[in-house]
């Protein structure tokens, strides 16, 4: 007996699925066209939704954190308060010293005022390890400009600019290589981005690097981006694998400063 196949079941794209699938595809193609023709308009459209998503994530994080160990949180808070007080004193002393040196020698780093910009989209929302800023060429941002976060920590460089928005390529973007230095003796190294704020680095076994050493990238001056968290020495290899802890968490960046000129 000949097997009877349902013609309707065999249709890969039924009229109903075509309507929903094609409608979704139509919206997507429209967004792609907006991105290509009016890239600034897309950021303006997405801005409120990004804000909503960030608020929802913050609320979810707050709820999940409330289930944590209260005593541990209190202990961490006390420890951080003590560290903060010590760092404030140290920072004040260093700021005074820097001011004295600037008065004496002049400040080569003060090429112009940085541009403050809010971050509208960041990892983990952005899958390519980029930041989307709410300021663009109208505010004076140019491609290639250095972007810094809290405390002047370098985050990356401006990749593309529209009139009212810009995209930042983070130094930690996967596969991005950045020249820099490590340690007090400023050993030249190449940092490789691993995504989500992390870097990888390997050094010859003979390098004088210790846990706690800072890693610097070029800017107006050598600027720290990460600190050595762990050194893994393989006896069978001539290289030491260096685990780095970034000084800035890209998941929680709200504001950045953008240099008014491109890096040389």
């Amino acid at each position, binding site marked *: 007996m000949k097997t009877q196949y349902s013609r309707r079941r065999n249709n890969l794209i039924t009229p109903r699925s075509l309507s929903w699938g094609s409608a*979704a595809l139509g919206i997507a193609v429209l967004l792609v066209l907006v991105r290509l023709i009016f890239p600034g308009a897309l950021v303006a459209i997405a801005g409120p939704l990004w804000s909503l998503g960030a608020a929802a994530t913050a609320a979810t994080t707050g709820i999940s954190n409330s289930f944590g160990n209260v005593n541990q949180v209190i202990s961490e808070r006390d420890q951080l308060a003590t560290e903060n007080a010590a760092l404030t004193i140290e920072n004040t002393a260093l700021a005074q010293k820097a001011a004295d040196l600037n008065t004496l020698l002049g400040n080569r780093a003060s090429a112009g005022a940085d541009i403050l910009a809010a971050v509208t989209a960041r990892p983990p929302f952005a899958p390519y390890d980029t930041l989307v800023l709410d300021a663009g060429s109208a505010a004076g941002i140019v491609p290639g400009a250095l972007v810094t976060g809290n405390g002047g920590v370098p985050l990356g460089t401006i990749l593309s600019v529209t009139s009212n928005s810009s995209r930042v390529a983070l130094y930690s973007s996967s596969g991005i290589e950045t020249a820099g230095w490590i340690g007090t003796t400023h050993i030249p190294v190449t940092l490789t981005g691993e995504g989500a704020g992390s870097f990888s680095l390997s050094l010859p076994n003979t390098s004088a690097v210790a846990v706690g050493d800072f890693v610097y990238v070029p800017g107006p001056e050598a600027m720290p981006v990460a600190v050595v968290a762990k050194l893994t020495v393989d006896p069978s290899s001539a290289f030491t694998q260096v685990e780095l802890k970034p000084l800035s968490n890209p998941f929680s960046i709200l504001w950045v400063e953008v240099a008014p000129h491109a890096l040389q």
Partner: protein
Amino acid sequence: MTFARIFPKVIVVCALLAPFLFPWPFAVALMILAGAYEPLAAVACGLVADALYYAHGLSSVPYLTLLGVAVAVISVFVRKFVETRIIGR
């Protein structure tokens, strides 16, 4: 209208909004789920995510669009070669 009929449409809408609202791994999970019901929706989700976040200087390939196409192809493949054979028995 039953829940079984509404659910795929809700998933498609959620998957389209996910790149705006949720971290990208969650958006990809919704894309795969939507692709299981509507193959074209997976492509759409990939396109939306890349329209929002793709940066030419960082990546030469729009990975999320390619992932959406892959999910759609797998979904069509499953519908064609698995579901039809089961129904044909």
